[in-house]
């Protein structure tokens, strides 16, 4: 039972992992993008449209990432170039994408795309327990495993990553040092958008293999929350995403096993557990990027 919970959790959590990592890049650069949900929707629909057109889930994932970049570009234009309020602009982008995808998506609802097939990793998949949990997934799950250390390395060990973090703390210092804080934020938002769109496409073409209206169901907002409550740390952000996935799996596994649990509790479980755990582990060491709070206060 624990095995299936963790295995499903990793699969479902991957759809949340990519947008969470994307939002982490955004916030480390000093921008909160509440439009993440909109980027996921755009990615999910673009993924299905491209998947249907090409017959390949991989093209779907690529299209999803591109759509995520396009949605992020709208947001970045409003916030970084035109100085729009971050929270308001993010919500508008979400509304915009919700309307747009439900209108464009009408003709695509329910049409089946062949989703990614699982590729158990030889030898490793034979390991008891861990083998099934970690090594019996589709390639994008393994991509997620790789993305976590890569992003950590990028943010903490490279000059470009340092520039992103510096922009998130003191944009003026970055400008004074002869770099462009605006350009850094814009690029960071586009990169975050690519990951967000990829997460949406992973949901639609990677996992379930079809589009349905508003199929992201608020996961984009969960991603934003996961980043904040993980105290802007890569490892904890990833852990939060997988934990959320595992809690969704728990709800159905408990039922499949015939346990009677209060429905409202089951529905709230993923949100409750993820928040509580992240709050507890990050309570002592919060290092919010300075520019984040500055951007959200009235100046």
């Amino acid at each position, binding site marked *: 039972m624990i095995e*299936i919970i963790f295995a*499903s959790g990793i699969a479902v959590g991957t*759809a949340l992992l990519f947008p969470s990592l994307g939002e982490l890049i955004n916030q480390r650069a000093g921008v909160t993008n509440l439009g993440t949900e909109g980027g996921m929707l755009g990615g999910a629909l673009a993924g299905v449209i491209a998947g249907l057109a090409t017959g390949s889930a991989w093209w779907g994932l690529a299209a999803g990432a591109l759509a995520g970049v396009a949605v992020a570009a*709208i947001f970045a234009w*409003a*916030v970084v170039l*035109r*100085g*729009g*309020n971050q929270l*308001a*602009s993010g919500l*508008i*982008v979400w*509304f*915009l994408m919700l*309307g*747009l995808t*439900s*209108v464009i998506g*009408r003709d*695509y*609802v*329910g*049409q*089946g795309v062949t989703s990614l097939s699982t590729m158990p990793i030889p030898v490793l998949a034979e390991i008891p327990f861990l083998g099934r949990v970690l090594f019996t997934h589709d390639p994008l799950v393994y991509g997620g495993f790789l993305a976590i250390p890569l992003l950590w390395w990028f943010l903490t060990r490279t000059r470009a990553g340092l520039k992103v973090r510096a922009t998130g703390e003191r*944009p003026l210092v970055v*400008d004074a040092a002869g770099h462009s804080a*605006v350009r850094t*934020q814009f690029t960071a938002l586009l990169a975050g958008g690519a990951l967000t769109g990829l997460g949406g496409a992973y*949901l*639609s073409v990677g*996992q*379930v*293999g*079809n589009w*349905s*209206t508003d*199929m992201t*169901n608020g*996961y984009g907002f969960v991603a934003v929350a996961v980043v904040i409550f993980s105290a802007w740390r890569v490892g904890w952000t990833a852990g939060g995403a997988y934990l959320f996935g595992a809690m*969704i*799996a728990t*709800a*159905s*596994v408990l*039922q*499949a*096993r*015939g*346990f*009677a*649990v*209060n*429905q*409202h509790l*089951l*529905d709230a479980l993923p949100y409750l557990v993820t928040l509580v755990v992240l709050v507890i582990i990050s309570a002592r060491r919060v290092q919010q990027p300075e520019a984040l709070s500055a*951007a959200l206060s009235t*100046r």
Partner: protein
Amino acid sequence: MIPNPQRKTTAAVGAALTAMFVLSACGGDDGDGGDLDADIENPLSVGLVMVGSEQDAGYNQAVADAAAELDEIEGVDVVTADQIPENNSVTDTMQSMADQGVEVIFATSYGYFDYALDFAEENPEVTVLHQGGFHSGDFPENFGTYWGAAYEPVSLGGMAAGGVTESDRIGFVYAFPVAQSIANINGFHLGAQQVNPDVSTHVINTSDWCDPVRQQDAVRSLLNEDVDVFSQHQDCQSTVIQAVEEAGEHIVGYHYDAVDLAGEAWLTGSTWNWAPLMSEIVETVSVDEFTGSEFNDNWLGTFAEGNNPLELGTFGDAVDEDLQNQILEEEERLSQEGESVFSGPILCQDGSELVAEGEVATYEEVNEFDCLIEGVVGNLAQD
């Protein structure tokens, strides 16, 4: 860097786009009358409001198909709107239809009831029909609700599931513990039990009428319990069908005949055929005889009356001829007066009596079922 905090340029765009919804007139030329032998003397316009997409391979596509058939009838113009959420949007949509001269509106989602009833009371010149059935109380002269005894064909689908399963474990993915779903789960299990006394039905709910992520997760969890035949009560069924097909197991559909999508996985299913009923209602309105008619009420179609709008779908290859005949014989039996899927004795999971020996449950009683029956594994979502 925030160079100019005074700009607020994007708000209007988002609002404008989200507020738009699409009213589409059905294409096709009026004329040949399709397969329906309706006789419309006074031409009139009909509107159908749907909660989901016309292409969902499920509940809403069944309605959209009926709309297209209605449009074939000479003297009937059809306007449809889909993806209308269960809030004031329904009222707005019905109002804009009425403004276009629509005289009959079919509000085709269970959750539209209150909006449809209010709209009927305020617009006596428009006849409003609610799809979903079973509400008590007095209706205005221009309002009615209709439905079919869904558990009848669902129990036949259960027979297919019980006959095909090799693990003797079949699964049912439902959304909410509403009366219709409870009746469907119980009917499905009773059907399966008829052909396979050892079968157990395992239930999971998704807390949403159409959430692909949860649907897939439910299938995954049931597969892990060795379930090898699935059915569901969801609005959209693509995800469940695809997940089951990918796992190489079998599916019994609901709402819509998705044999094309399911391929080898398809056993059979229940499929809504609304057009005959809707055309009869439209005909009744066109000759001004709606008020006081059977449709100005709680209308219910059943096998016994020969007018159940939910019909048994096509059989897949995995259902052999013997089993097909057995299912068709049962359909014959249920079509006789006084027969019911729910003939006692039927016990709840806790051993209490749901239907007494020698009794049959009436439709009203079925709508008050609040327990899963013996042989069903799992629990109803608790409040």
